């Protein structure tokens, strides 16, 4: 019922551009939650949470793998790492990969709170790192390939779909403070 109401009000807002509707809409979902709340079912959220919990012990390995894949397929992404040693197995690569995976895993613990969880990282990326958000897609794809390699058959089409949606939502939230 809640979901339907939110959807109805969204239609109303789209038709009338009425700001009153926007206020009503935001009482049911906060704008920030809309992305993740409506994109993922509870089953999917549980699946995502479970997968990242399992990958936390190998965070450095997975993260470094995803980064290496991204650098190999999309050489432009290397420009953001000119200050680090990003050769395979370098300590910089492993620690950076670990950081990224742990942030993704933390977000997965409570996807409905993504904006709260990622607030500091939003600021970091918007004001300091200023990574062009198009690159988030490239890392997301590379991460999916890493997951496929690591999980094999377990990375089913359903898991892949859920993960792709989660990483899209994660990237969208990360870019929220850019402008």
């Amino acid at each position, binding site marked *: 019922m809640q979901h339907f109401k939110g959807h109805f009000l969204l239609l109303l807002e789209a038709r009338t551009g009425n700001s009153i509707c926007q206020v009503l809409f935001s009482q049911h979902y906060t704008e920030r939650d809309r992305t993740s709340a409506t994109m993922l079912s509870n089953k999917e959220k549980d699946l995502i949470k479970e997968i990242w919990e399992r990958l936390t012990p190998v965070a450095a390995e997975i993260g470094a793998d995803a980064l290496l894949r991204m650098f*190999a397929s999309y050489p432009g992404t290397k420009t953001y790492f000119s200050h680090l040693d990003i050769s395979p197995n370098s300590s910089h690569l492993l620690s950076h990969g670990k950081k990224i995976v742990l942030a993704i895993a933390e977000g997965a613990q409570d996807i409905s709170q993504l904006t709260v969880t990622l607030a500091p990282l939003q600021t970091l990326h918007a004001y300091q790192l200023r990574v062009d958000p198009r690159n988030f897609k490239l890392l997301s794809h590379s991460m999916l390939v890493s997951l496929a390699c690591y999980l094999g058959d377990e990375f089913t089409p359903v898991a*892949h779909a859920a993960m792709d949606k989660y990483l899209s939502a994660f990237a969208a939230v990360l870019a929220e403070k850019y402008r």
Partner: protein
Amino acid sequence: MVEWSENERSIISNIFSNLDYNDVGPKALVRCLVVYPWTQRYFSSFGNLYNAEAISTNPKVAAHGIKVLHGLDRALKNLDNIKATYAELSVLHSEKLHVDPDNFKLLSDCLTIVIAGKLGSAFTPEVQATFQKFLAVVVSALGKQYH
């Protein structure tokens, strides 16, 4: 003109020589229909696509997946002339099938992930980059005749 090093040629041909088309083809198409459900719009004649289970056991999807994967053989055999090789198929996809060319990338990403799942760590970053370069050229050729 796309340039291919000897190394890239051998990487690409190795991937295909070890490929079970009857397994990978269906898996790639199934994955595309599940992960990007809007792609189902092109398959209304395929019957039951209501959920992941139905899609993955649908015989028409499987048959079509195999067909599509064999379509890549042409590129494999004509690496130095992929654009011309796919001209006819491009016209087909544009004028008869009316497929939005953005979908080609979606399917190619799913194929990459299926192959990654099969090869595991053997699908190194270098192999992945080469394979993605190959798919990107195919995707571009398939979109070339749209107007």
